[in-house]
């Protein structure tokens, strides 16, 4: 089921009073049935796949926990990881692996054809797989006690607010809230509704309208594009994916909150980041934290942390890890992170692009420039934003070749006056970005003493605009970009 649909609104309108009126044991049942229904509304057959995956992890975790024999524990862990990653690789990467193998074969003069069946990518497989993997590893690390109640565990894996596109949460962040569920108070319900509204506005109004610029622009031949086109399209997609995904996350967090759950925020104004490291503490925070704890820090040989907060913010300051090992781990991590986002080489390059940004930043910070702080902040913000946006080209361009050409075109002084799109496309992209910065600036005023009546008027006006726009623009369901992951 998609959040930006009448069906989801109807489901929440049904679930809220039921949750409010039911005793705790029944509420847990509502969450499970609701989650199964939510996924089945996409495809019921694939619901069984998620359940199967959860069954294996449930028993594997008990096997890991029960044994004191390290080999037995590792065997159960390997079973769990093999199943989870195996399903992910099969459903998500089969075409990619076969295609890449064929390409390599052609390079070596060997031509072979492999006929593949029509493989459907299960909705949210990348997200729930990461959740179940983290559960098994946390039990192995003995920072999580396996849950004895399978329906409860299945609810954790399938809980509808975060099932198909995150946030990627750890068992210890959700299970206690399920076990000892308490109803949301009135303040939380209001706050949750605000978050749902803001998320819908971002998705339905902002992301879906700028998508016309993106879809048109990335369909143009690069040879016809100018320098400004490349930059505009980089920013346009950067804005689209931000509004789309942060909108989704906000609806997820808001939905959870009105149901009585407290989920961490997944985005924190990433385009205000002043360094690449800062960016990854603000973008898809729960995924960055997952990668940090289950991939990056283990590869470095450093101590992991145990929460889906903090983003990429990594090791304790006291830990000494060699520069080379740290950066090799970084490159490998980002290569995998890139491929997690999509089964194509351009996603891997996108990951390496970000790894390179972080490495350059680290090198620069070894001898920080002695400049006024304002200049460092402004320069850091400009460079981080510009290169993060350019990186999105790899994410969105139809081919790796076109992505490289577009990035090169962004630095082509001979194409400065060439423009391949209508004037409105540039204007819209500029206004969206400028609007984002203005809103970020206005929200900072919250920290100052703004008189309550003014605050009330601004909040009412803001809500009215967002609700009106959602009513006008909510139409044929547009899928979230991250659903393909």
């Amino acid at each position: 089921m998609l959040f930006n649909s009448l069906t989801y609104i109807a489901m929440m309108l049904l679930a809220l009073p039921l949750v409010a009126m039911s005793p705790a044991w029944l509420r847990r049942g509502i969450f499970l049935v609701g989650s199964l229904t939510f996924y089945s509304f996409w495809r019921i057959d694939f619901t069984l796949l998620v359940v199967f995956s959860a069954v294996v992890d449930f028993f594997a975790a008990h096997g890991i926990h029960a044994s004191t024999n390290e080999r037995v524990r590792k065997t159960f862990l390997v079973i769990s990881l093999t199943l989870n990653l195996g399903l992910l690789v099969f459903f998500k990467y089969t075409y990619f692996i076969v295609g890449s193998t064929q390409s390599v074969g052609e390079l070596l003069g060997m031509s072979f054809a492999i006929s593949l069946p029509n493989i459907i990518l299960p909705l949210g497989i990348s997200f729930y797989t990461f959740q179940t993997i983290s559960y098994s590893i946390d039990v192995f690390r003995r920072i999580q006690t396996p849950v004895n109640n399978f329906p409860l565990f299945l609810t954790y894996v399938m809980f509808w607010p975060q099932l198909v596109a995150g946030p990627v949460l750890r068992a210890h962040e959700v299970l206690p809230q399920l076990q000892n569920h308490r109803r949301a108070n009135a303040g939380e319900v209001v706050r949750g509704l605000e978050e749902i509204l803001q998320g819908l506005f971002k998705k339905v109004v902002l992301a879906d309208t700028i998508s016309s610029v993106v879809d048109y622009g990335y369909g143009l031949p690069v040879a016809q594009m100018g320098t400004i086109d490349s930059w505009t399209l980089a920013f346009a997609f950067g804005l689209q994916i931000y509004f789309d995904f942060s909108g989704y996350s906000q609806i997820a967090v808001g939905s959870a909150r009105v149901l009585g759950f407290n989920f961490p925020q997944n985005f924190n104004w990433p385009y205000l980041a002043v360094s690449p490291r800062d960016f990854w503490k603000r973008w898809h925070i729960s995924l960055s934290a997952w990668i940090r704890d289950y991939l990056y820090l283990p590869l470095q040989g450093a101590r992991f942390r145990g929460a889906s907060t903090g983003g990429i913010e990594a090791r304790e300051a006291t830990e000494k890890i060699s520069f080379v090992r740290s950066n090799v781990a970084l490159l490998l991590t980002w290569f995998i992170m890139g491929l997690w986002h999509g089964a194509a080489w351009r996603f891997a390059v996108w990951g390496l692009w970000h790894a390179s940004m972080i490495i350059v930043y680290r090198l620069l910070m070894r001898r920080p420039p002695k400049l006024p702080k304002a200049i460092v902040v402004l320069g850091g913000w400009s460079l981080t934003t510009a290169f993060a946006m350019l990186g999105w080209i790899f994410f969105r361009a139809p081919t790796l070749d076109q992505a490289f050409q577009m990035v090169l075109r962004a630095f082509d002084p001979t194409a400065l006056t060439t423009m391949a799109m209508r004037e409105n496309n540039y204007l819209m992209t500029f206004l969206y970005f400028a609007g984002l910065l203005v809103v970020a600036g206005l929200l900072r005023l919250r920290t100052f003493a703004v008189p309550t009546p003014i605050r009330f008027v601004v909040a009412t006006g803001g809500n009215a605009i967002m609700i009106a726009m959602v009513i006008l623009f909510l139409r044929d369901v547009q899928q979230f970009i991250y659903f393909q992951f």
Partner: protein
Amino acid sequence: MSEGSETKAEWFARAVALALGFLLALAYVNHLQKQRLEAAQFALGEDTLPRRAQFEGQLSGAHTIPNYASTLLAASDTQSWWDGPEGLWLGNSQMHAINAGVEGSRTAAEYASEQLNLPLWSLSLPNASLQEHRFVFEWALARRRPDVLILSLVYDDLREDGLRPELDELANSTLLATLQTQGVQAERLATLMADRLPDDADAQGSGGYGDSAVRESWQDRVDTYLEGRLSANWSLWRERSGARARFQTDIYRLRNTAFGIKATSKRKMIPIRYQRNMATLWELLDRAKVEGIPVVVYIVPLRWNPDPPYEIAAYERWKTTIADAMADRPGVVFEDLDRLVPDELWGEYSKSGQIDFMHFREDGHVILGRRIAELIQRHLE
């Protein structure tokens, strides 16, 4: 202040802001709805009337996509109604819009039809590009083969690219397959359209960020049901598209005011769009030639007081390019009609005071209709 320490007064104020915002939003949408605009009216201005042409009691003109199908198909269903020669006229809003028009005003197509005593199926869309004409021509060809094709050329519409989503309604696999064999631009249009149409896009490799993954799912069915129920019982929901068009018009006007954009502001040509449209024009003419359909090509009448909102030198170069190319094409009659309609027959957007360069009064339609009839006559003779 942390969430936990929010006082009762604070959350109550937020709740009131939310509830009040909801009521204000409904009032605003209701207000927009009362001033709603039909899509066809959006580009015309208040003083200009859209009109569907008729021939002998049969609707022969259409300026919305659903009407395209019903017009041509209705005629095809009644074969006995007409078995003489007939024409197909493709153009933009100039064809269906009459400045200061009143009930009963007639378009150029009707005047031409009357003079020739044959039906001219006139299919027009606001700002229709040559790529869209190409697509519509192929679609129409499969339904009613015309004896003559009349094609209007509008310099301004060369700034358009691709196919508008409403045209999806006309697409089917046969049409797309035909386009794929008809040249580079036609193949591109077929691909563009195919990417938008429902397919087995659950499968990987279908690509795109479309919504096809939910098509035919339970969600799709329930959404359709709820949408139907809401539309049936809540006028505000049912009329959202009109309110949305009104809102977008307001945004468009706000942009024009903020950036000082007027009807007279010069519009630059966009090279890639120009090239694609021109390449499509040559393909379209080649296709008509293969089918043995004679073509009348004309450059549309424009208002010349003041000068049109183009770079005049570029516009003149374009006309020369067209004239030179047409001279070498057998089966094509070409005429530059850009000064055909005198200044006094052009309109204004009365409320905004903006000058209208594209739409003239009924007398202008009379002049254009008669001129086109003469050009068609040359072919049919």
